[in-house]
């Protein structure tokens, strides 16, 4: 059965990125960077007491 795993993992890509996946990646990354910038600004003005 090990060869099954080998074949499956090394099979050429047959699933191109769909628009919904691109949207998920883009929104996650964009929102993540935006929120981190907001937190960094808050962190700057409200330092650890």
């Amino acid at each position, binding site marked *: 059965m090990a*060869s099954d795993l080998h074949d499956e*993992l090394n099979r050429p890509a047959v699933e191109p990125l769909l628009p919904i*996946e691109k949207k998920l990646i883009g929104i996650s*990354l964009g929102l993540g960077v935006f929120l981190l910038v907001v*937190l*960094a600004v808050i*962190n700057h003005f409200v330092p*650890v007491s």
Partner: protein
Amino acid sequence: MTDVTQSLEIEAPKPLTEDWLAAGIGLFIVLLAFLGLSGTNFLGWAVSTSVWTDPSHALAPAAKTFSSLGGIPALLLTYVSLLIVLSIGVLITGANVARFATTFTVLFFLAYASWFIGNYAHFAAVTPADLKKFDIDWSLKLTAEGGFIIALVLGIVIANFLPRFAEWLKPAARSELYIKIAIVILGAAVGVAVAGKLNFASSLLLRGIAAVIEAYLIYWSVVYFIARKWFGFSREWAAPLASGISICGVSAAIATGGAIRARSRIPVIVSSIVVIFAVIEVLILPFLAEHFLWREPMVAAAWLGLAVKSDGAAVSAGGITEALINGKAALEGIHYAPGWILSTTATIKVFIDIFIGVWAFILAYIWTNHLNVRPGQPRARAAEIWERFPKFVVGFVLAFLAALITSLTASPETVKALTPSIGEANVFRVIFFILTFFSIGLLSDFRKLWEDGFGKLVAVYIVSLFGFVVWVGLFISWIFFGGVHPPLAS
């Protein structure tokens, strides 16, 4: 499916049951610590190991009131009590109690022997005062927590050179259960520590939000993209892989696998890779943190919480790092209050854990409605958020609140008695740490890395972890924790 994956599937933890079990055992120990406030000491008999040159003086009961008991009886009593409590837990989860009890006995004494050796003064002594105290002229300066590393390495040696023995020990090698119990007990210690530094602690907690954003929104999306676009993984492989590398190792991979309705072997295989790389991280990152970040202890603490995957490995790495950094700082005359580095790493990990259910629900919604729509297949349910919530966090929060509220509201006499009581519970936290380290090592069969078909998984893990996750984690930890130092010991 390979034999390896089959055995992993059989041994795969039952997260919900195991989480409640960890919460129950952890809270039971914390409750005994609180009952000690009534004047009767319920935990002081537990064994504690001091740094030694004469082994006959190494072991002793945790409380002086039990000193007549002696070290070896205290060790045996500790073993018997843990055996009884854990066996009852194992019985509740439906596992084979006799097999657990037999293997736990061997595992406990091997693990504790590692801790005992780690406390040898030539390994553990750090400061010139320590060297003078033990009348020795050299030490590896590993601190007493070097015993964790010895336990880990012993586990790895057994796993890789004595595979049959390792397989036999596996029923007792429940690293996730042990670390979750330890985290619940840690909750009480954090509560006591935080009470005295409320503003400082709340500032740190707010910064933990950055870790959640980083793990779920930034890490996950980048790793998913790398797995799909660069390595050509299918969605069914890429999503659990992204969660395993980005969020919280084993539990995240399993939660994601369930959420996207992946075949059961996929999160199991991903988990086995996560565990192996977590061990590699534990062996490397604390020493890098000591060398490069000892002047920035809280950056180091946050970094490990973000970079090391799996609860056990991350919190363990936090414990070693605290010992190493505090030891190095002590050489410079800086004496940090104990517990803050470890607590920060653990809190960040717990913060990240809390949102696994929410993230799994989001993925389940997208997959069942847009990517993997099958007639008759059940759609994502909001109830899955609670179903996948790591229940041991409930225990951590309860222990934390009980200690915090008591510290803030009780009479000065009670508050004064609370610290040593929680300290005795902490003895058990250390023992569960030792069991965790040994178990993690025991489950780290490095030969899996060379198995047919694993190469591509390992490649995406290495690229993502060491090319992205570790460095972004360091950068963001620096932004939010740079210049922040633990309180000094009073």
